[in-house]
């Protein structure tokens, strides 16, 4: 122990005094440590003076007696001595145990230090790690990543699947609910299409056009009722609807307005018996609920009633040349003589009775769908006028009406201008005008078509314009000869080459073009040469006119042909005053002479009398001429003499112009 450096150890006793009490302000009152005398007194109290040495012996005898039981007597005596020695030592030094403990600690520390210094040199002692299991191969971190990714993905997938499950559950629930359809959701759907309001405990709706501008006094109220007559025990049917609508009784069923034009006037007794045909109900959209179809049908009935009421009111109020007849649900008027227009309101309810009676099939061919559609449109237009932006908003001091009417005062409009602003035509007048126009147009088309099919030479073509007005249509009628439509253009070029630079291109093509404007009551024809002719609605007039034009065309064609063939036109007249009088139009005539002057052809064509062609021969070719002394010289025999008629029907050629061309070429000698 003397070789080891002394280690200084500082010892400090815990002078913690015991706390007697803690005051209210936190101060601690310490117990005074015991003084020497007090300590002695405390120790003295511990001694049990009553036992004395005898008790010590007894104590020694105690363990002695025990020892004798186990071991021999010799060992017990040694133990007794050691015990006696041990009892003395505690009074030697109070820090002894502390010193011993510290000493042992120091020893241990020195040993540890020594071992560590030897191990550091690694000459005599080394530290060897504890052998572990073999290191796994290098893929270890990657598989670990893979496994960890898999796990995390599985976790995410789990969450997503849970969410998807929840969604599918809610969707199936909704679908189930749709089928079941509770009252409120159905009511919501109804409210998206129709106006509803709550009156007391009833829900009422409005299916009239009043909010769209109508002035019809019908209330148009329907009631929404809950459908509670289902049997919950039975299976709910497919088309079950918890909502039902009740429409007013006079709007039940379906209605439409039948507009038809008949040629013959009916008997008085037949008035009022309108031929209804039960029009098949328009197919409702596949997804629409039954109340929608019901309400739409009722609204249609209401509109038809309003249209008919307006028409009948106008028919009675406004005076026209031929009065309109209003009987029950039919209005009859006569736009043209021998023509009857009937407008009737056909309202068929859904009773079984009427279904039975309507089994007889009526032909719906004479029903003009266009006019019915137009009636609906006109009514809606009338509605819009009451709500249009022209009338609203307007100054408080101005009356309702067209905006321009407000300017009529300050700008001093006279009566004509004021009348032009105000539309004074009613619904009935408009529809009658439209009907007249439709009828006139169809009849004109029929006339032209019948003429075209009946007469082959010349040909008549009609080109109808696609863009028409409600009151006006137009058609272009061409009269041509087959095979000779364009020839004159070529002929013009050929003739103008040698010297004739000033060539009057009077007819560029041989066709006669007529532009027909079909109005409400009249047809206006504009001819190619500028004439404007107004025809009335009689179809005979148009037919006669076209026939006369066709006959004139033939003669014009001869004139053009003469130019091409080099024949000289001697005379030409559109309206000859000679020969038999035509009942339709006038006959036209032309005389042409051959290039060398030997022959002449004279043509007379009338719409009724047809064509008459005569050829004039030179005198020396006619054998049956009487000889006379008047002609001294033989040169006079070269002049043209008498006429001979050509049997045109035996002439070869498919049409008039072709035949004429053959005749002309036959009479012109070849110059070869």
């Amino acid at each position, binding site marked *: 122990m003397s070789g080891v450096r002394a280690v200084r150890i500082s010892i400090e006793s815990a002078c913690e005094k015991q706390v007697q009490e803690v005051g209210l302000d936190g101060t601690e009152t310490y117990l005074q440590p015991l003084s020497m005398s007090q300590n002695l007194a405390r120790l003295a109290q511990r001694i049990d003076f009553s036992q004395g040495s005898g008790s010590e012996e007894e104590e020694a005898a105690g363990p002695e007696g025990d020892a004798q039981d186990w071991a021999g007597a010799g060992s017990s005596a040694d133990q007794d001595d050691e015990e006696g020695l041990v009892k003395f030592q505690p009074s030697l030094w109070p820090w002894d145990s502390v010193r011993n403990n510290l000493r042992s600690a120091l020893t241990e520390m020195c040993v540890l230090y020594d071992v560590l210094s030897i191990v550091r040199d690694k000459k005599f002692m080394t530290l060897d790690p504890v052998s572990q299991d073999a290191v796994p191969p290098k893929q270890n971190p990657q598989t670990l990543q893979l496994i960890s990714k898999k796990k995390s993905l599985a976790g995410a997938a789990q969450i997503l699947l849970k969410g998807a499950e929840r969604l599918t559950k809610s969707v199936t629930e909704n679908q189930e609910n749709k089928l079941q359809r509770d009252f409120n959701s159905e009511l919501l759907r109804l409210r998206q299409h129709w106006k509803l309001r709550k009156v007391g405990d009833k829900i009422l709706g409005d299916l009239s056009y009043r909010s769209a501008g109508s002035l019809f006094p019908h209330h148009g109220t329907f009631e929404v009722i809950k459908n509670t007559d289902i049997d919950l025990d039975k299976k709910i049917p497919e088309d079950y609807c918890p909502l039902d609508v009740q429409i007013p009784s006079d709007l039940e069923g379906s209605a439409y307005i039948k507009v038809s034009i008949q040629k013959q006037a009916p008997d008085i007794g037949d008035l009022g018996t309108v031929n209804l045909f039960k029009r098949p109900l328009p197919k409702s959209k596949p997804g629409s609920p039954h109340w929608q179809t019901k309400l739409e049908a009722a609204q249609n009935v209401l509109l038809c009633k309003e249209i008919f009421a307006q028409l009948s009111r106008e028919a009675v109020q406004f005076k026209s040349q031929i009065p309109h007849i209003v009987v029950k649900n039919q209005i009859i008027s006569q736009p043209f003589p021998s023509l009857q227009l009937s407008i009737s309101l056909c309202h068929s309810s859904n009773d079984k009775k009427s279904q039975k009676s309507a089994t007889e099939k009526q032909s719906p061919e004479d029903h003009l769908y266009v006019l019915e559609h137009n009636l609906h449109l006109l009514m809606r237009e009338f509605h819009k006028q009451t709500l249009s932006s022209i009338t609203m908003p307007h100054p408080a001091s101005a009356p309702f009406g067209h905006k321009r009417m407000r300017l009529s*005062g*300050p700008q*001093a*409009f*006279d009566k004509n201008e*004021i009348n032009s602003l105000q539309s004074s035509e009613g619904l009935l007048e408009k529809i009658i005008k439209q009907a007249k126009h439709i009828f006139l147009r169809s009849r004109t088309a029929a006339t032209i078509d019948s003429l075209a099919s009946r007469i082959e030479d010349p040909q008549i073509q009609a080109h109808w314009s696609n863009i028409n007005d409600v009151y006006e249509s137009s058609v272009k009628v061409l009269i041509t000869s087959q095979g000779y439509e364009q020839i004159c253009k070529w002929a013009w070029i050929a003739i103008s080459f040698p010297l004739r630079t000033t060539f009057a291109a009077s007819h560029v093509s041989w066709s006669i073009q007529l532009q027909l404007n079909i109005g409400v009551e009249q047809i206006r024809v504009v001819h190619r040469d500028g004439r404007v002719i107004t025809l009335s609605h009689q179809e005979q007039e148009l037919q006669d006119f076209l026939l006369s034009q066709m006959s004139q065309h033939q003669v014009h064609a001869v004139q053009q042909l003469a130019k091409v063939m080099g024949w000289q036109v001697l005379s030409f007249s559109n309206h000859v005053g000679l020969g038999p009088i035509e009942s339709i139009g006038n006959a036209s005539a032309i005389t042409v002479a051959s290039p060398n002057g030997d022959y002449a052809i004279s043509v007379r064509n009338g719409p009724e009398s047809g064509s008459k062609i005569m050829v004039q021969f030179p005198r020396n070719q006619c054998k049956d001429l009487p000889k006379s002394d008047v002609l001294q010289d033989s040169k006079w025999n070269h002049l043209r003499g008498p006429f001979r008629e050509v049997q045109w029907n035996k002439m070869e050629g498919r049409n008039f112009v072709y035949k004429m061309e053959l005749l002309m070429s036959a009479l012109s000698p070849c110059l070869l």
Partner: protein
Amino acid sequence: MGVTCVSQMPVAEGKSVQQTVELLTRKLEMLGAEKQGTFCVDCETYHTASSTLGSQGQAGKLMYVMHNSEYPLSCFALFENGPCLIADTNFDVLMVKLKGFFQSAKASKIETRGTRYQYCDFLVKVGTVTMGPSARGISVEVEYGPCVVPSDCWSLLLEFLQSFLGSHTPGAPAVFGNRHDAVYGPADTVVQYMELFNKIRKQQQVACPQEW
């Protein structure tokens, strides 16, 4: 709206106003004009109220409010040599509200009523000018519809007037003289009527003793 000439036809010697009017209308009908209804032009006079005149004591201006049946929804308000306002018929109601500023001279309401004739492009109106119950004169108005520039058609109008008025054909109206090439408007017609009415009023004042 075409160029219009308003003139006065003096009453024929020894005949009443009505007879002269009848004479004229017969002439027109023989000419070939067709009757197309009646017309009326009336005029009310208003003074500017004395309260607005100020201390200088100016003479109150006269304002005329006229109506013409040719322009049924309009009302014309004009001063003597001043502007002419064309307004809505609500203007009459407005005048009632402006009673404080314009006082009507009630006695001088004057109007002319008569028949309207159409002769191709010409519109002829022959009317009796009345003030109260008595007839004071005859007004003749001729309008040539197609033209709106006075200088272009004055000679045509003059010729037409000569054809049935004869020696009583008037000269060119004063309104033409101001702006020869400007467009003629309804206001000019009304100004002519105003001048005519003023002339008749003055005439009558002179000829008053001979009235009966």
